[in-house]
């Protein structure tokens, strides 16, 4: 089972490789990738050095070019693909149909993975992308249960990669414009969701912390309560006089205990979310999951989760992998 780990910076990439990542994914420092956050990502020179470092340690590097090219300005996206190919990336992770077609045509030897942002949620959509664009692996949307993943793998020829840890999109990825509705910036177009530039915190006299996004108050925590980042789909709202987490609690995904089931379901690779997290976080999570995949390979039980303190709002869920989540 391949472990695919996040790196927002060269330091995080080295930390992930040192902690046992089989594969690291990262992106260029512009809006061609879906973690276009302040202070993150790789320059061209950093990417080349990072790939060389990873390859020297027998780890692979996947370059995420998984936003949707700006109309009238496809240059940065085409350049990102060409530069990733030239830098020796083991694959590119793409979401946009036009960019997939471009890459298949101009860089036929560059391995193509279908990003979760393409939301290919069934065998027909996956086979379609495999046939049309020669996609070799698909990152499955986080809307599927383990049974559905099993069924999908029976009907497709390409590899599947699933998220096992970290931030959790409750919407079908790549098909959500909540963020741009509130802030003008979206994952699909700008590579950011609920961007920090539009976040404001206010702590009042009694210690209550209010979090606003684009001027909308979507979270309040009393003194001493955890303060989740104000991501829209995990905000607190009111509907018909009922106040609560309408879409999802401020929780994050931990499917470490499901790894044996996912392996049985035919999954090829496990993905850890978190390119925006620190190298300390990446090292800890990667080490824990490498222990889990090594246990799996040796036929031992998965060590129980020790990562609660690193998860959002200090709680974790198995998300859509359990059908009751819906």
């Amino acid at each position: 089972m391949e472990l695919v780990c996040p790196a927002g910076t060269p330091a995080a990439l080295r930390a992930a490789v040192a902690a046992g990542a089989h594969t690291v994914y990262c992106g260029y420092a512009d809006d061609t990738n879906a973690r276009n956050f302040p202070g993150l990502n790789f320059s061209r020179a950093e990417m080349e050095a990072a790939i060389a470092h990873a390859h020297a340690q027998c780890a692979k590097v996947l370059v995420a070019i998984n936003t949707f090219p700006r109309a009238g300005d496809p240059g940065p996206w085409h350049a990102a693909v060409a530069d990733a190919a030239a830098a020796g990336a083991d694959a590119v992770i793409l979401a946009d149909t036009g960019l997939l077609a471009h890459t298949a045509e101009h860089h036929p030897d560059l391995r193509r993975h279908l990003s979760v942002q393409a939301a290919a949620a069934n065998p027909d959509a996956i086979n379609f992308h495999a046939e049309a664009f020669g996609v070799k692996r698909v990152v499955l949307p986080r809307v599927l249960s383990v049974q559905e993943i099993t069924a999908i793998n029976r009907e497709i020829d390409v590899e599947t990669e699933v998220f096992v840890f970290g931030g959790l999109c409750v919407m079908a990825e790549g098909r959500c414009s909540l963020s741009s509705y509130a802030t003008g910036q979206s994952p699909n177009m700008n590579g950011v969701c609920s961007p920090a530039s539009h976040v404001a915190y206010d702590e009042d006299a009694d210690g209550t912390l209010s979090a606003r996004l684009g001027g909308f108050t979507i979270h309040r925590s009393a003194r001493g309560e955890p303060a989740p980042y104000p991501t829209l789909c995990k905000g607190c709202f009111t509907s018909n006089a009922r106040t609560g987490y309408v879409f999802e609690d401020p929780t994050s995904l931990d499917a470490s205990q499901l790894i044996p089931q996912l392996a049985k379901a035919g999954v090829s690779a496990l993905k850890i979310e978190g390119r925006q997290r620190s190298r300390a976080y990446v090292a800890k999570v990667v080490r824990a999951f490498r222990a889990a995949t090594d246990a799996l390979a040796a036929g031992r039980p998965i060590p129980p989760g020790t990562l609660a303190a690193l998860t959002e709002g200090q709680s974790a869920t198995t998300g859509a992998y359990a059908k009751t989540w819906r």
Partner: protein
Amino acid sequence: MDLTVGPNQFFWGAETWRDFYAELADEAPVDRVVLGELVCSKRLPFYQADIPGAVERLQAAGKRVALTSLALVTLKRERKLMAELFETGLEIEVNDLTALAHLPEGAAFGVGPLVNCYNEGTAAWLATRGAGRICLPPELPLTSVTAITAACPAPVEVWGWGRLPLAISGRCYHARLHDRAKDNCQFVCDTDPDGREVETLDGQPFLAVNGVQTLSAACANAAHQLGPLRNAGVSALRLSPQSAGFTAVCRDFRALADGRMSAAELSARNLPDAPGGAYCDGFLTGMSGVAWSQAG
């Protein structure tokens, strides 16, 4: 400027549904109607038998008719449903690329607003595959609309009216708000014919939930952008059904497109029945989607 009526996004009872399309056929001055189930396959059996009659009546009234695909296809029976769509012989509006996998060689199809067509590269690829028309994602700014329209051989349509489809999920929020599982939803979304409003902690209307779909609370209204959209080469506006006053919306947009009514008058006349009682048009030219170009 053509007018297209998009598929009803909400869950209405069969009688309401029938009456809506009968009135649309007989009274609404629109060019195309897309109908069928977009949001949740569980709703379809409630009105599926009424679709052929509605199609016939709309066609008899001189309107072009297309059937929509589902927006998110995961279940086996949903995949089967997608395959069956093409057997109807009607034009299909694809709102999930899954439907393309079932497309018979050479069959014409339309592309709906829930397909991620963000640029001319994707538009060109879709046109090569046989897309006869493309309704762009509502999130796109006017600059993108202009660039795509300039390069796209197929006619381009833009979201003109109605609550904006902002997200689709595997999880049903209506069921969650009623403490029910999706598999035991008991079809609670039928109690909110224009979606259920969600407010911020400061009490501002913000979003609306509609089963597995999340919409804007405000009603998008591109009336004030008609000139720029026309200049961009956009050939149709999409009007999205609402539970009250929809024929009036269609008539007024016809009058606006024909130069018989001002955007200000259209906006004032249709505000009382507009879902959410407020407008937005910010995705086209504003700082954010929720922005309204006519705000004081």
